[in-house]
């Protein structure tokens, strides 16, 4: 059991119609940790994140966040409680500028001067975005769009940041940059739940990991152990 638990998921089940996408998963994340949830296509990774963000309703199970039951909150109130999601495929507002996207991230906040300060902080963290602040987000490259999505999520000052496949569809060099940013964000003390298909990169960045296979968690442990384990090597790393 991890000390100082921020998020505790117990036996979470989600169904789409008659199909069970999550067959009861349990995991926990301590404050300040970077935890990754890896698995192949269709394993249920995105479903798990969506359920935690409140975009899907689980059929059963419990989620405790900061000692509170999370499932009673609708999606928008989870953001107020400090849970931010960077959705799969980034979900940026393509027809708004980079800056408008970031400001939309601060929708729940009212402290204007602090928002301006946070905006400057994001530009520091992602200098590319500072150059492109007046550009339409839809015209950015995939990697830059991912940065917009992450910076936008940080604008609500999250306690827990959930990233859904940030490396998806990116050039290898860009993937490196995105992961560098993820490490930077983690270094600032933000707790991160990282969902990835790219098991190697995710496990190298994370402290602990969970392996999800067809809706159930089959393996868990320290990231370095998982990286060395035969099962993970065989299934995801292709050796």
């Amino acid at each position, binding site marked *: 059991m991890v000390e100082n638990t921020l998020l505790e998921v117990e036996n979470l089940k989600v169904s789409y119609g008659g199909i069970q996408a999550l067959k009861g998963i349990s995991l926990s994340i301590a404050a300040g940790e970077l935890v990754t949830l890896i698995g192949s296509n269709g394993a249920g990774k995105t479903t798990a994140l969506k359920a935690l963000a409140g975009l899907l309703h689980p059929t059963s199970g419990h989620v405790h966040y900061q000692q509170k039951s999370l499932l009673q909150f609708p*999606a928008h109130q989870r953001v107020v409680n400090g849970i931010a999601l960077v*959705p799969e495929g980034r979900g940026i507002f393509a*027809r708004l500028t980079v800056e408008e996207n970031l400001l*939309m991230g601060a*929708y729940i906040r009212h402290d204007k001067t602090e928002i301006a300060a946070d905006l400057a902080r994001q530009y520091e963290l992602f200098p590319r975005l500072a150059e492109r602040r007046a550009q339409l987000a839809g015209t950015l490259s995939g990697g*830059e769009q991912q940065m917009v999505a992450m910076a936008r999520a940080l604008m609500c000052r999250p306690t827990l940041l959930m990233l859904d496949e940030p490396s998806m569809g990116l*050039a290898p060099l860009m993937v490196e940059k995105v992961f560098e940013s993820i490490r930077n964000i983690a270094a600032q003390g933000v707790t991160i739940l990282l969902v990835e298909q790219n098991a190697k990169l995710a496990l190298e960045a994370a402290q602990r990991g969970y392996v999800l296979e067809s809706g159930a968690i089959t393996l868990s442990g320290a990231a370095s152990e998982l990286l060395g384990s035969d099962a993970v090597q065989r299934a995801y790393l292709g050796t």
Partner: protein
Amino acid sequence: MRLNHFLTRHFVLAIALLALPFIIDALFGHGWVRITDFALLYIMLALGLNIVVGYAGLLDLGYIAFFAVGAYTYALVSSPQFGLHWPMWITLPLGALIACGFGVLLGAPTLKLRGDYLAIVTLGFGEIIRIFLNNLNAPVNITNGPQGISAIDPLQIGSFSFGNSYQWMGMRVDDVHLHYYLFLGFTLLVIFISRRLEDSRIGRAWVAIREDEVAASAMGINTRNIKLLAFAMGATFGGISGGLFAGFQGFVSPESFSLMESIMVLCMVVLGGMGNVGGVVLGGVILVALPELFRNAAGPVQQALLGKVVVDPESLRMLMFGLALILVMLWRPAGLWPSTQRRREFAADDSVLQQEQETVYDASK
């Protein structure tokens, strides 16, 4: 200096707007002042629909139903139908409130629908309201069915009726002039509210929902309430406009609230420029004025050129209307006067292409 400029400009605009009905009257005659009054009612409607379609991006094809609800509310409580003669400062807000309720009624079950599906449901809603109005004369006669309700009280405040003519300082002021000022006041109010909403937190939330609903709720936006609010606000404007229409016309019947009317109002929004208040106003003026102009011109022009009227002006009117729509959509797909956002979105010009190329090629930097 800037403030002075601002004041001068608005002062000139105000004088122009105040003098407009008399200028129109002198130049084109009484009938055109009446058409101007209708244009103002349509502008109010279009601005209401603009909130739903332009700001929140929810395609509503049954919008005229709220106009009908406002009009019938006014008609039922200010006519011999039930022998009620409530004053307009009660009936207008009441109509707006009931229309607002209907807006929520339409919004609630359609929260999960988008695009084509939403369009179909809203279209059905508009028709249901019209058919109800058409058939609510039995077993209990409420709406008087297809005959409609006539002898509706004129709009009046105390003993001052907008339906009468007055003599002021040797100048004759008729009902069409008086209604113009009343409608102008309401229109300006609706414009003011629209502009304020656009710049507000709610306005930004609407934009976010229009762009990407999942991302919007991941930003902490209560998408359900914000969408309902869009329906409710749009419906409220429609209801006010409907009440004014009933008082002005003195007669309402279900015919006035057909699908064609919904489409007409939608055309004003799309043609003028979705999401831009100025564009929507322009769209309203053009779509009310042009068909009337055409109706008056088509006969005489044919007479002069061909010596006889070959095609009925009425059918030519719709032909030209369709042609105009196609031309605008081809050449100005974002509308005649688009909002800056729409303009950017449709501006697939060189500068944007170049930006894209740059970003793709130097992404690895």
